[in-house]
């Protein structure tokens, strides 16, 4: 029953493991807080409703209570922060991009994604490079790094299944990396309002087995060479 589910859709990248785990941790913690507070609220409303002959309990507060309900939330959020910081560093940190990541260039523009592949030689700006519109092909279980650029306005490369999202900013070259774990096709959407075609700035990422990827790459360069 999707409409009440707090589960995340299945992830297909290495990031999904860490991000989803963090999400569920926060879900449990906030879920407990939610139940405690809301049940407490309703219970008080019922138990302490006005009744003839009963006066309210006159008090201005309790310092111990203040200390407890300041410390517990503070410690909790700091812990969540520290755990999150570690995951963040693995995804976005300075040294986070694996050295052997396959390079791609994605240029976002109104309203399409232009993906440039370095071709079989793995180098950009060589004759075997080729560009495809709205199609990203990657091999499974290999890190991939995208150099993300934008033509005119801010777009955002969003691949929900991979837990990937990175704004593409005109005038900047931003690196975003990921490693797909499951072959299949997944959708890419633009995650930053970019004009009237924002809603249909859709692309598809296909995750191939290594063999299939090599075959596909070979085919593409033949096509490119013949043009």
């Amino acid at each position: 029953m999707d409409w009440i589910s707090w589960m995340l859709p299945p992830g297909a990248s290495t990031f999904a493991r860490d991000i989803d785990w963090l999400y569920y941790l926060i879900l449990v913690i906030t879920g407990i807080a939610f139940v405690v507070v809301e049940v407490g609220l309703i219970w008080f409303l019922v138990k302490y409703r006005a009744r003839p002959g009963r006066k309210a309990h006159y008090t201005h507060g309790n310092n111990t209570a203040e200390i407890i309900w300041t410390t517990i939330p503070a410690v909790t959020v700091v812990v969540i922060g520290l755990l999150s910081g570690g995951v963040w560093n693995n995804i976005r940190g300075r040294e986070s991009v694996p050295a052997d990541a396959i390079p791609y260039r994605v240029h976002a523009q109104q309203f399409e994604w232009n993906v440039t592949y370095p071709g079989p030689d793995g180098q950009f700006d060589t004759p075997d490079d080729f560009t495809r519109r709205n199609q990203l092909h990657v091999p499974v279980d290999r890190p991939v790094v995208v150099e993300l650029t934008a033509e005119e306005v801010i777009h955002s490369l969003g691949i929900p299944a991979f837990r990937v999202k990175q704004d593409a900013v005109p005038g900047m070259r931003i690196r975003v990396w990921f490693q797909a774990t499951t072959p299949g096709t997944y959708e890419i959407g633009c995650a930053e309002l970019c004009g009237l075609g924002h809603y249909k700035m859709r692309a598809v990422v296909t995750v191939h087995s290594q063999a299939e990827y090599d075959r596909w790459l070979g085919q593409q360069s033949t096509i490119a060479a013949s043009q």
Partner: protein
Amino acid sequence: MATIAPPVEHAGHPLVDDRSFIRKYIFSTDHKIIGIQFLLMSLLFLLVGGALAMVMRWQLGYPGRPLPGGGVLPETMAPGGVVLPEFYNSLVTMHGTFMVFFAIMPLLVGVFGNYLIPLKIGAPDMAFPRLNMASFWTAVPAGILMVAGFFVEGGHASAGWTGYAPLSADPEYTGVSAGQQLWCLSLIILGLSSILGAVNYISTVINLRAPGMTWFRLPLSIWSLFITAILVLLAMPILSGALIMLLFDQTLGTHFFLPAEGGQPILWQHLFWFFGHPEVYILILPAMGMASDVIANGSRKPIFGYHSMVFAIMSIGFLGWIVWGHHMFQSGMNPTLATSFMISTMLIAVPSAIKVFNWLGTMWGGSIRLHVPMLHATAFVAMFVIGGLSGVFMASTPVDIYIHDTYFIVAHLHYVLFGGSLFAIFAAITFWYPKMFGRMMSERLGKIHFGLTFIFYNMVFFPMHQLGLHGHMRRIYDPSIYDFLKPLGGLNRFITISAFLLFATQILFMINFIGSWFRGRKASNNPWDDTGLEWTTPSPPPHGNWPVTPRVYHRPYEFSSPLVEEDFLPQDRELDTPPARAGSAPGH
């Protein structure tokens, strides 16, 4: 048992009111009239903002289908009643813009700042009554300009209420030219109105408190309005500066945010959110303060932890300045900088938690009267908790990667702004309506309005968490373009229908508001048996508020005090048992 001491002679002023009709009700310098003027204007814009949302929801629930009655809309917006994508983007932009700047902010700050501050501190009016009038009459042209944007060529602004550059900076990218410029100009003018108001509020609270009204005898509504005014004073000018630079990029060929000659799109985001984050605390602090007043009254108990509450308000006000980057985690900003913003954002959860527990502590052991204001104030707490907890998810930078720019954010912001601010506004309106208009609102109609609003509201916004978790992006005209979003069509429809019901329910509030003005039961000075100074003067108060300056002897919220027989002790009631000197007993 104490008896009431005979009134002490103070320097007073006779309350003669010989102003003309125009001076009394149109170009008035009376803070109460100005407050009501802001109230009427803001409620109108709340309606406009809601109507815009209904059109948005129609498109999301029934993509590409003609809107019933949509034939009245021009071809440039919805040919044949079918909303165009460019119009949809305008709807999204203008819904946010009207709601934030012309509804919620003026409802909290313009209405209740004006109405409550002088009355609750014992002053005859604001420090600068004419400046106050200027403040309102500056907001009016700002509103007119903002509405005008719908009628210009190219349509209204469509770059989101956040106006990110370069999309907003060059008409070529949206097809919108004059509309986007009017948007900037209107907000610059509104900023001036807000800043003048803030100067007034801050000066008044500092200098015009009645004798005995020490800082720690101020009700929390006033503390929160005071801190909010400081935020307005310091944050709005940043927005003004940013809007000017944006306007110049749009019209004079400057390059602040356009990369062609070295401008930086991210600079806009930094400027906007440096304003924008304090702005959202502007949108919640007064709500929290007024909710405290109502909850203490409804529970017949002092606020639990008054000093902690004041400390929490100040902390939120201060910390609110150092979290802005959490709106920009995915923007391409330096990841280490992002981590520092994550820490500060996690920390700001703490004072909010303190407040929630203190509200619960106030209700604990109380003798709770569930009058209409108390219903709304309780709902405020319950809904704000949901909004606040959902914020923890997005505070975590890695989790934010997934939920940024999805409906999870939309759910969060509506839980704090509607579930939080708007319910608190309903609490405040229903609570202070008798004082403002001298009439009681209908309790029965109020309860029905509350119940239906609460139910439909949750039906609209709770499922948005699910939409977002499924990956549903914000601001998209037709989700069915994406295969992974097609299954959510049913949920979107459910939300749409609930939204229509929610909107329709507000008719009950309008009937109550307007009907009670003419036919409501006449209100006494103090229909809620409250302790605040505003309840010691008639409903509505005369021009000048009191013939004799009040003198304050007690803390706020002295409900169920053992010192008196009634279950409330007004702040200005002198007891003839020699009172401890102010400050000598703990917290007097």
